C-alpha cells in the first residue's frame, strides 16, 4: 500500500514538470519545492508614491494586509508579471480596490540577491507600467 502511494505521489509531483504546466496538484507537494534553490529573487508589485514623495508597496514589506489578502495578491501580481513577460496587455482591474486613495500608483519589478532583498532590504527597482499617473 505505502510503496504504491509513494510511487503515485512521485508521479503526480513530477507530472507538472514534464508537461510544463508547473501547476501543483493538490494535495501533493510540487517537485519544484525540492528541485531548485533561488539565488536571486524577482517579484512584481504595486508601488505607491505619495504626495510627499515617499514610496511603499502593496505586497513587499506590507504588514497591513492579512494572510488571505497576501496569498490573493501574490497570485494577482504573479499573473500580471507573467502577462508582462509575454508582452500581453496588463489588466489591473483586479487591483482596483488597492489603487484608490493613493497619489500615484505604478506596476514595478523588484529584483536582486535573495538574502539582500529579504534581510537587508536592498534591491533593484524597475517601473514597468503606470496604473494611476
Amino acid at each position: 500500500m505505502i510503496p504504491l502511494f509513494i510511487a503515485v505521489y512521485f508521479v503526480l509531483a513530477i507530472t507538472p514538470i514534464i508537461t510544463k504546466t508547473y501547476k501543483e496538484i493538490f494535495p501533493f507537494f510540487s517537485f519544484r519545492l525540492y528541485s531548485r534553490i533561488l539565488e536571486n529573487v524577482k517579484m512584481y508589485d504595486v508601488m505607491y508614491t505619495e504626495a510627499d514623495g515617499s514610496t511603499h508597496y502593496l505586497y513587499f514589506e506590507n504588514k497591513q494586509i492579512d494572510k488571505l489578502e497576501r496569498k490573493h495578491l501574490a497570485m494577482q501580481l504573479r499573473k500580471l508579471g507573467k502577462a508582462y513577460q509575454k508582452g500581453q496587455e496588463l489588466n489591473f482591474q483586479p487591483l482596483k480596490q488597492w489603487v484608490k486613495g493613493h497619489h500615484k500608483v505604478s506596476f514595478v519589478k523588484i529584483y536582486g540577491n535573495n538574502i539582500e532583498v529579504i534581510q537587508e532590504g536592498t534591491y533593484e527597482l524597475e517601473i514597468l507600467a503606470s496604473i494611476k499617473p
Partner: protein
Amino acid sequence: MRTLFQTVWDRTIDQGHSFLNKDQDQKYKRAKWLVQLFYFILCWLSVQSFSQFTQNPEWHVLVNAEAMFDPIWPVMWMQFLDWEFGVRLVLITFFLSTLLACVCWYRYWLVRFFAFLGLLMYVALVSSFGKIDHYMHLLLIAAFLFVFLPNRKKDATIDQGGFFTSVFWKPDIDSSQLFHIWIL
C-alpha cells in the same frame, strides 16, 4: 534509533528471530496511543480554526474573503452555496469529524475517513486563495493512511496488532535495504 540504524546497515535477524518482532504487544499499544494523539491534535486544530490561529486565517478573515476565493478541486462545490454557510459547513465538518475520530477512531474506518475528509476540505479551503501552503500536507497524508488501519474486533489478538503496526512499518523485515522500512 538503534532499530533504524541496525535495519539500514545490518540484518534485523538476530539468533533466528527478527528483533523488530520483539515486544509486539508493547509496540501495538504505543502505536495505538500515537494514533489517538494524532486525532486529538487534529481536533485541537479544528477548534483553533474557529479562533485566532498563528498559521491559518482567523474566522472573521475567512468570512470576509469571498471576493478572493479561487477554489481548488475539493472545495469547488462551495461556489454554489452561500459563502458564509459554506465556510461554516467546512469548519463544522472538520470539528465534528475530528471530535468523532477522537472518540471512536478505533472502531470504524468510516470515522477515520470522515476525519480525513474534514481535514481535506479545511486545508483545501485555506489553500483556495491563490497559494497552496504545505504545512498541513503531512497531517493530511497521515490521516489518509490511517483510514486503512484495521477496525477493532471483539476477539482482537496480537496478530491484529501486527497488522496494525504494519501501517507504520513492516514488522517481519529481514533485509538491510532502506526502502524495506515502511515507516510512515
